[in-house]
C-alpha cells in the first residue's frame, strides 16, 4: 500500500521537489546580498543606538530584489498550505470516488482503514515535510531582516515564520481530504477547501490569535515627546496617541487615558490648541493633564508560545478531521 500511495503521488512529489529547489536557489542567491547589506550597514557591530544602521540595512534590502523575494516568500507560506489542501488533500479520496477506483482498491486484500491510514500517513508526512522545509528556509533566510524590523510577531508575518506553516499545511491537507470524501467530486472539494482554509486563517489572525496567550498590559505616564498622533477634530475633539516604544512587540491597543481611567477624547482647550497656537504649546498643555498611556500587547518573548499554541490548535483540528475520515470511511462511505 505504501508503494502504491507513493506511485499515485509520484508526479506531485517531483513537482514539489522541483519548486522547492527553484525557491532554494533564489533564496541562496538573494541571501548573499542580504548578508552583504547587513555587513555594509554595520548592524552587527553597532553599539547603543542602532536605529540608523537598521534603517540603512532595511532600506537597502527593501529596495533591492531581496525586498521582492521577501514579500513573495511570505506570501508563498500562506499559499502553499492552501495549494497542498487543494491539490494533495481534496483529490486524495475524491478522485477515487469520482472514478470508481475505490471499488477496485477496497476489494484487494487491504482493509479500508489501512488504505486510508497509508494514504494519510504518506501524503500527510510529505505535507508536514514540505511546509516545515519551506518555513525553515524562509525563516532562516529572513532572519536578519526580521530581527532588524522586529515585526515577526505581527499579523501578516507571524504565520509565515516558525512552525505555524506546518500546522496550516497539515490542517489544509486533512480539510481537503475530508471535503473530498464528503463531496465526492474533486473540483467542488477543491473550492470548498480553499474557502474554509481562507476563513480559518483569517479568523485566526483577526479574532483568535491575540487571545491564545494572555496579553501583557502596561500603563505609563504619557510621554509627550514621542507623540505619534495629535489630532484636533470637530467639536474640539482631541485624539492623542503616543508611540508605544515596544520594539519587537505586537501592540493590540494603544490608548491614552485620563487620570480617572477613561479614554481621553478632549476637549482641546482653544487657548492652547487653537488655530493660532503653536503646536508645542498644545503638546505642553496635553502633557500637563496627567494623561497616561494604556498598552495591551504581546511582547517579542510571546512569539514561541503563540507559535506553539496556534500550531497545536491547527494540528488538533487536523487530528479530529482525520479521525472523522476514518470513521466515515469505515461506516458510511460506499
Amino acid at each position, binding site marked *: 500500500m505504501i508503494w502504491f500511495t507513493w506511485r*499515485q503521488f509520484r508526479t506531485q512529489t517531483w513537482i514539489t521537489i522541483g519548486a522547492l529547489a527553484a525557491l532554494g536557489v533564489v533564496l541562496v542567491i538573494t541571501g548573499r546580498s542580504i548578508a552583504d547589506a547587513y555587513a555594509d550597514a554595520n548592524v552587527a557591530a553597532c553599539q547603543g543606538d542602532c536605529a540608523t544602521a537598521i534603517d540603512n540595512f532595511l532600506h537597502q534590502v527593501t529596495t533591492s530584489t531581496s525586498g521582492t523575494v521577501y514579500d513573495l516568500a511570505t506570501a508563498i507560506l500562506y499559499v502553499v498550505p492552501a495549494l497542498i489542501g487543494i491539490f494533495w488533500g481534496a483529490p486524495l479520496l475524491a478522485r477515487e470516488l469520482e472514478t470508481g477506483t475505490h471499488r477496485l482498491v*477496497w476489494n484487494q486484500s487491504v482493509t479500508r482503514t489501512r488504505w486510508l491510514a497509508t494514504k494519510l500517513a504518506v501524503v500527510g508526512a510529505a505535507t508536514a515535510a514540505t511546509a516545515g522545509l519551506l518555513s525553515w528556509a524562509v525563516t532562516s533566510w529572513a532572519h536578519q531582516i526580521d530581527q532588524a524590523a522586529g515585526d515577526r510577531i505581527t499579523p501578516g508575518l507571524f504565520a509565515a515564520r516558525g512552525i505555524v506553516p506546518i500546522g496550516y499545511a497539515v490542517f489544509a491537507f486533512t480539510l481537503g481530504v475530508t471535503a473530498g470524501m464528503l463531496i465526492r467530486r474533486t473540483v467542488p472539494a477543491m473550492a470548498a477547501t480553499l474557502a474554509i482554509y481562507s476563513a480559518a486563517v483569517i479568523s485566526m489572525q483577526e479574532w483568535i490569535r491575540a487571545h491564545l496567550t494572555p496579553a501583557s498590559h502596561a500603563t505609563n505616564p504619557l510621554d509627550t515627546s514621542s507623540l505619534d498622533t495629535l489630532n484636533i477634530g470637530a467639536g474640539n475633539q482631541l485624539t492623542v496617541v503616543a508611540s508605544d516604544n515596544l520594539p519587537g512587540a505586537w501592540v493590540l491597543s494603544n490608548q491614552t487615558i485620563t487620570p480617572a481611567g477613561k479614554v481621553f477624547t478632549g476637549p482641546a482647550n482653544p487657548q492652547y490648541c487653537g488655530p493660532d497656537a503653536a503646536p508645542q504649546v498644545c503638546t505642553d498643555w496635553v502633557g500637563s493633564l496627567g494623561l497616561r498611556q494604556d498598552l495591551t500587547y504581546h511582547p517579542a518573548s510571546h512569539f514561541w508560545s503563540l507559535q506553539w499554541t496556534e500550531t497545536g490548535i491547527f494540528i488538533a483540528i487536523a487530528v479530529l478531521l482525520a479521525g472523522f475520515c476514518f470513521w466515515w470511511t469505515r461506516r458510511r462511505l460506499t
Partner: protein
Amino acid sequence: MSNPVVLAQGLSKRYGRRQALSDCTLAIPPGRVVGLVGPNGAGKTTLLHLAVGLLRPTAGSIEVLGGHPASDVAQLAKVGFVAQDAPIYAGLSIADHLRFGAHTNPGWDRQLADDRITKLGLDPSQKAGKLSGGQRAQLALTLAIAKRPDLLILDEPVASLDPLARREFLQGLMEFIAEHGGSVILSSHLVSDLERVCDYLIVLVASRVLVAGEVEDLLASHYRLTGARRQPADLPTGAEVIEDSHTDRQSTLIVRSTTPIDDPSLTVEQLTLEDLVLAYMSQDATHSAPTAAMETTP
C-alpha cells in the same frame, strides 16, 4: 451439500425511501457459475455490493464463504470483485496495476497475471486509460483473478463490450474457472450474455428475488402450455402460473411445476432460459406492482 458461498437471510437495503433490495433469502451452493439477471435498476448491483461489503444491509444478514463481507484481510482475500464499468487507474500503466495487485494481495499469482496480459497481447507499459473497453475489462478481470479468490463476483462485466470482446471476456473467465475452480457470480440485464456460461440462475426484479436455482432444474420445472382458452386457475395441481396470455380461443401459460404436466388438452413445451427469465420479468410488470403497493401499507 457443502456450505453455501453466499447465504442471505431477509437481506434488505434501503436508500432513504427507496427500497433497493427487499427481503432477499438465498443460499448459493459452491462451485457454480451464477447468473444474476434482472432489468436495470432491479437491485443487482446492490446485492453484489452487499456481498463484497461495499454496502451494509439495512436489515437481514449476508454471509459470504462463511464470513462477513469485507470484515478483515482474510475475507477480502477470498473474494475477487470487478465493479460495474471495470474501474482502473487511468493514469497508471498495466504493469503498475499488476504491481498494485502484487503489493495488496498476499495470495497474488504473478505467473497467472503475467501470462494473461501476454496472452491478451497487451503491452505492460501502456497506460490503462488508453485501453479499449474490452481490454480494460480484461485488465480488471486479471486483477480480480490473480489474487486467486475462492469466489469471483463480476458486476455487469460485459454490458459495455462489443460482441467480440464479450465473447473473449467470457472465454477468459471460463478458462480460469476450468483451470482453477471456485465459484463465480456475474450479473447482467441480458440472460443471453450468461446463458452459455452459467449453471445457476437468480432472477431479480424490482428489488425482489423471484426465482433462484440450478439452470437444469429451472428448465426442467417450467413449461409453456398451450390449449383452448381457460382460466389460469383451471390447471393441474401443483402448477404455478408465471405468465398467461389469452386470445379469444386460445390460452398460453407459462407455469412452474415440480411434477410433469400430464394433461391431454394442453400442448406442453420446454422453455428456453431466455423465455423463462422474460416470463418472470413480465410477471413483475403485470402482477407485482399492486402487490408491492399493498405491502407498503401495514
